[in-house]
């Protein structure tokens, strides 16, 4: 359907991590500034942790986007679990060296020592809980040698806490925890996102009652909010096409929010 009011908002909330979609919210901005300041310090490792959907990956991508303009930054958003491959990719993309022989830790450190940068290169590791203990130990040794500075993200669960304790407790000099959004923050997040894309009419449809319901359904989780709103605007798109008289443009229908929540699995019905 052409000229649909809801197709553009729907596509805005597709669950993809794109630094250009980063929305400035007070608490997240504060976190991001802390992260940037920590990167500038002579730290060996920085840990970014929080529950799934709190925006860790988005912050990491944003950091990569901003820092890559000024210094050598490498982003691993999909973990490379093979140790040889991991070291080989690091050597090639950070130090521009592609050895033909098997890449050992000693060989990697030799390469790193041979190449000098004005700033220590930064490697961003998303989903670090997927790396093996052995590989995490090598990452620790590399950071100890100050060859590379690592910023890693971890899910906040008991298991990952153990990993963090074992490998990073003595090395991490800074850790930043991300929290779920409050109703007010979530409203700002949604409206900023819509206004950024010039969806003014749709942004005005969100009232406090709607936001209360959305926050209670998603518990302030950004990922769940994106999924919910994507389903919600898909519903609106369908009704606009089939029953346009049912749409009220001054507020979102609670029934349709709940239907979207059922579709995304936030409500079990």
């Amino acid at each position, binding site marked *: 359907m052409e000229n649909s009011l809801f197709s553009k908002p729907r596509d805005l909330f597709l669950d993809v991590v794109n630094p250009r979609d980063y929305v400035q919210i007070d608490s997240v901005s504060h976190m991001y500034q802390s992260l940037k300041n920590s990167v500038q310090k002579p730290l060996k490792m920085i840990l970014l942790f929080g529950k799934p959907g709190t925006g860790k990956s988005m912050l990491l991508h944003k950091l990569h986007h901003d820092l890559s303009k000024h210094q050598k930054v490498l982003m691993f958003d999909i973990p490379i679990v093979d140790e040889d491959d991991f070291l080989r990719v690091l050597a090639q993309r950070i130090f521009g060296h592609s050895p033909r022989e098997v890449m050992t830790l000693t060989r990697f450190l030799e390469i790193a020592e041979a190449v000098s940068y004005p700033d220590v290169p930064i490697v961003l590791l998303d989903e670090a809980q997927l790396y093996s203990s052995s590989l995490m130990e090598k990452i620790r040794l590399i950071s100890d040698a100050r060859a590379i500075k690592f910023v890693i993200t971890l899910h906040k669960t008991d298991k990952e806490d153990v990993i963090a304790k074992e490998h990073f407790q003595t090395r991490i000099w800074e850790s930043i925890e991300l929290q779920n959004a409050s109703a007010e923050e979530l409203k700002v997040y949604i409206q900023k996102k819509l206004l950024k894309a010039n969806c003014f009419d749709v942004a005005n449809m969100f009232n406090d009652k709607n936001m209360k319901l959305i926050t209670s359904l998603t518990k302030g989780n950004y990922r769940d909010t994106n999924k919910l709103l994507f*389903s919600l605007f*898909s*519903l609106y798109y*369908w*009704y606009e096409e*089939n029953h346009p008289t049912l749409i009220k443009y001054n507020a979102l229908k609670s*029934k349709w929010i*709940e*239907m979207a929540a*059922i*579709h995304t699995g936030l*409500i079990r*019905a």
Partner: protein
Amino acid sequence: MLNIRDLERRWLKYKIKSYAPYLGAVFTILLVSLIAFYNSLSSTVANEEINLPLTENSSEIKANNTETVTILEPSMDFVQSFQTTIPETQIATAPAPQRALPPQQSIPVPKVLNIPSSTSIKAPPPAISPLSGDKSLSLNRNESKLDIESVERRFKETSNPNLGLFIARYHYDHGNYSEAYNFSLKTNSMNSKIDESWIIFAKSLVKLGRVEQAKKTLHLYISESNSESARSLLDSIEQGTFK
């Protein structure tokens, strides 16, 4: 692709499920209040059923002893025969001055009980002690059937509730619960303020297997008299400790 019809169906199911606890609570409250209303209604009806005959009977008896009491609920043969024989005996034996006096004061009890109709009671202690100031009679138990028959005759003649209580107590002690019931009922109808008569009445009902009626009677009597002994008996019946 969204299946809107299916989503709407699932949403409806979800709403029904989410409102179910509230609906359940409302239904329970309605049910409880309905039961409470029904109970209060039935207790009121029962109250009227049990209270009315007693008050009417007592007033009628005070006014005219010869009038047949037909409202008494048990309507056992005994009661009928008892009532119908009263006028004859009264005409035959009862002197006019005695009838004119209140029943408690007009009882020539010692005279009747001292009639030795059996040789087994040669020297019984005085069956009825002299009338005390509070008009109550102190009766000793006669084990003889003939003696009790004479007391019954006197009761028919005089309609003295104290005699009725004595006879009711006698029959209850001898396991003759239907007779005990009848005499205590008669006594209650003559004087509804004799605690022991009500107790015997209720106990006889229990012994006759009419526990619910006994409880109901005790409830009503307690509400009117606030009797401790009646309350104690009611408790023991309800707890099942009454034997």
